[in-house]
């Protein structure tokens, strides 16, 4: 069709037609159909805010991000299918654009930009580095094996230890290994060893396959190396590396946690005061996500605590609330001071520059001072001068008791004096996890300020967390919104007896009516 020259058309029209043909029918390789000029338009609208006009990862938003946005000028990419040191394939880059990077500020763009736009922007991003134009640097993807049959977490754990994963990721995988406080990227920004208990936040995806691929390729530009040489030099079999991936996967829940709004606290006979009391085993756990406090100055864009796991039980007169959260450092800890300096340097936002110091870890549990009668609750962010909230504030430097008090806004906390001032707590820090149990009587010595906890009511509750080694204190914290706590009432015996009684009664009455009717009928017949 293209070989014959139609006479009726001018050459210019032919060019036009051919151009259209070219545009409409893309070549097999995406590169040939990509338009870097159109890509630049997309980039400047959607990407430059974080990645910078020149792709150097220095956009306006970058000052608020740990990890910082990718600097495209070096062409160093974490999520690849290629060996360490090689460029990513187009498919690798498209995956990161489509899906985003878990646990970071990079969202997925699959549903926000068209196929065309994403292809074009991909092509434009590649122009920031000369490596992509260098034909000697062509990426050669690894041919990954498929997963072996079955799962053997025990073998995985054995090799997790032997190949040194725990050095950074920690003995239990919460990113708290001995080398964790020293980690940084090529530019000196702080880096965190991934918390392996949160696979929904893994940069490159949380499946066993994703984890295996990251073990093979490493995350270039970060401290995470490639373990492929181990296989090539036969220090480890491919199956053993798959078992490591299976072990890592096993540390996270089967499904990413889902928020359920109401914490149900069942009735028990004895209150478990210790965090590791076996009585907690059968109690339902509720997960609540926390986010950085970015409403009031000083804002905090890099919270270390991503969520809390809460359980609660009560007896006839007392309540125990168990809050557990992952925290890679037991603060205060001098080992993290240099790291904290890097955190402050990276987050050079509008806040006043602060010197790293030794702050404790903290957790606050918040209630209203009284159960609201309507829909209105106090301001979730620690109330206001006119509508205070009732809080229990626990600190790692005073582990056995939390301070009860009234918060009248984010920067004002008035501890309660006298009765009810101290909330007894028991705390355990165990390989990157805090587990703290708060206990209190249900009744309150001061019902105006200290909320009495009653059964059968939806009690608003919120949580706040500070990781001192991450520079968190004061308004620099992780916050939740309001959720609810419900103290399940003991079900009274009449609940079970009444329906039976009612049924028996109804049946009896019915039978009586029928009997009477039959009596009458037989009487008439007799007459």
């Amino acid at each position, binding site marked *: 069709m*293209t070989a014959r*020259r139609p006479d009726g058309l*001018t*050459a*210019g029209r*032919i*060019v036009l037609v*051919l*151009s259209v*043909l*070219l545009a409409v029918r893309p*070549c*097999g*390789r995406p590169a*040939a159909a990509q338009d870097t000029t159109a890509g630049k338009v997309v980039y400047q609208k959607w990407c430059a805010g974080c990645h910078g006009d020149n792709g150097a990862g220095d956009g306006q938003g970058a000052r608020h991000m740990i990890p910082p946005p990718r600097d495209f000028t*070096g062409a*160093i990419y974490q999520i690849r299918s290629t060996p*360490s*040191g*090689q*460029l990513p394939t187009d498919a690798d880059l498209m995956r990161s654009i489509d899906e985003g990077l878990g646990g970071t500020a990079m969202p997925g763009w699959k549903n926000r930009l068209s196929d065309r736009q994403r292809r074009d922007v991909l092509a434009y991003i590649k122009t920031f580095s000369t*490596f992509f134009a260098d*034909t*000697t*640097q*062509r990426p050669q993807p690894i041919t990954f094996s498929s997963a072996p049959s079955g799962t053997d977490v025990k073998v995985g754990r054995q090799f997790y230890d*032997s*190949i*040194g994963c725990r*050095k*950074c990721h920690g003995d239990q995988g919460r990113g708290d290994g*001995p*080398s964790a406080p*020293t*980690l940084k990227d*090529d530019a000196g920004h702080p880096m965190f060893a991934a918390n392996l208990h949160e696979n929904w936040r893994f940069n490159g995806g949380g499946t066993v396959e994703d984890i295996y691929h990251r073990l093979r390729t*490493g*995350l*270039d*530009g*970060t*401290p*995470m*190396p*490639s*373990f*492929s*040489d*181990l296989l090539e*030099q036969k*220090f480890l079999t491919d199956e053993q590396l798959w078992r490591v991936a299976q072990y890592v996967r096993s540390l996270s829940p089967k499904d990413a946690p889902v928020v359920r709004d109401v914490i149900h606290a069942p009735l028990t006979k004895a209150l478990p005061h210790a965090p590791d009391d076996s009585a907690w085993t059968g109690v339902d756990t509720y997960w609540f996500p926390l986010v950085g406090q970015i409403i009031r100055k000083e804002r905090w864009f890099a919270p270390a605590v991503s969520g809390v796991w809460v359980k609660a039980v009560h007896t006839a007169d007392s309540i125990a609330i168990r809050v557990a959260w992952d925290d890679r450092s037991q603060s205060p800890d001098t080992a993290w001071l240099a790291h904290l300096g890097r955190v402050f340097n990276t987050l050079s936002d509008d806040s006043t520059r602060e010197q790293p110091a030794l702050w404790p870890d903290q957790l606050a549990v918040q209630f209203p001072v009284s159960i609201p009668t309507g829909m209105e609750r106090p301001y979730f962010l620690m109330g206001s001068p006119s509508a205070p909230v009732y809080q229990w504030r626990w600190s790692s430097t005073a582990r056995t008791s939390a301070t009860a008090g009234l918060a009248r806004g984010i920067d004002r906390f008035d501890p309660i004096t006298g009765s009810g001032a101290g909330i007894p707590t028991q705390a355990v820090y165990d390989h990157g996890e805090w587990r703290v149990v708060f206990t209190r009587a249900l009744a309150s010595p001061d019902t105006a300020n200290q909320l009495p906890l009653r059964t059968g009511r939806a009690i608003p509750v919120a949580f706040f967390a500070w990781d001192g080694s991450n520079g968190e204190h004061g308004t620099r914290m992780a916050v939740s919104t309001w959720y609810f706590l419900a103290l399940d009432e003991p079900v009274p015996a009449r609940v079970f007896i009444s329906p039976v009684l009612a049924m028996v009664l109804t049946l009896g009455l019915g039978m009586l009516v029928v009997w009477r009717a039959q009596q009458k009928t037989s009487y008439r017949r007799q007459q």
Partner: protein
Amino acid sequence: MKGRIFSVVGSMLLLTVCSKGNQSSAAPAASPTAAPTAAPTNEPPPAAPAAGSTAGGTITGHVKFTGTAPKNPTIDMSEEAACKAKYPNPPQEENVVSGPANSLANVFVYVKSGVPAGQKFTAPTTPVTINQEGCRYHPHVFGIMVGQPFEIDNSDPVLHNIKAIAKANRPFNVSQPSAGMKTTRPPFTAPEVMVNLECNVHGWMHAYLGVRPDPFYAVSKQDGSFTISGLPPGTYTIEAWHEKLGTQTATVTIAGTESKTANFTFAAH
């Protein structure tokens, strides 16, 4: 009109290229047909002597420092018993290594400019090797030629990762969790002073690698001495690089097979 015809032909060609690309993409992209400029082998053989040759001119010199050398921090190896056991006394970092009379070791001295741009040098096929032993790098500062094999050895029974931080070359990060591992990396492709090597498991482990297109480089020894030999006649800018004390330059003109001296003095803070 002619121009228009050309554009038609051009477009047709483009279309042909595209459809070819379409076909080949179905098959595994194994053939390196799209790399015609990868191997410029038809160049004349190097005019200059190969690395290590004694022919040509020689530059020798000493590197010194003035002032007080900063103290090297003591390394806390308590996390790595196998490494710690290798030292009778706690080891120190090698930020500033000095010898008698204020001599300065671990200075990378190289010909920064003056070698004709078109002159090509063949890289040796013997690898440059870095070894990890006692949770330290050996050597600490060294050079390698573009195209020369680079081998990384681990003599420690602990996990090391070797992360190369580079700009002109591709950075990489590979792990060696076992003693006896030997990894040969693809050669470096571009000159770069310096490529930084570090271990993220052991934050004190740093090494510096100068990647050069020619063999005209050396590292000062404990007594501060260095020798660069085999230089063809010419005027050269010599740079001395130190990881903490910065860089110094000197200009040296070589005529014939003479030996010239270039001394460097760094100011310690």
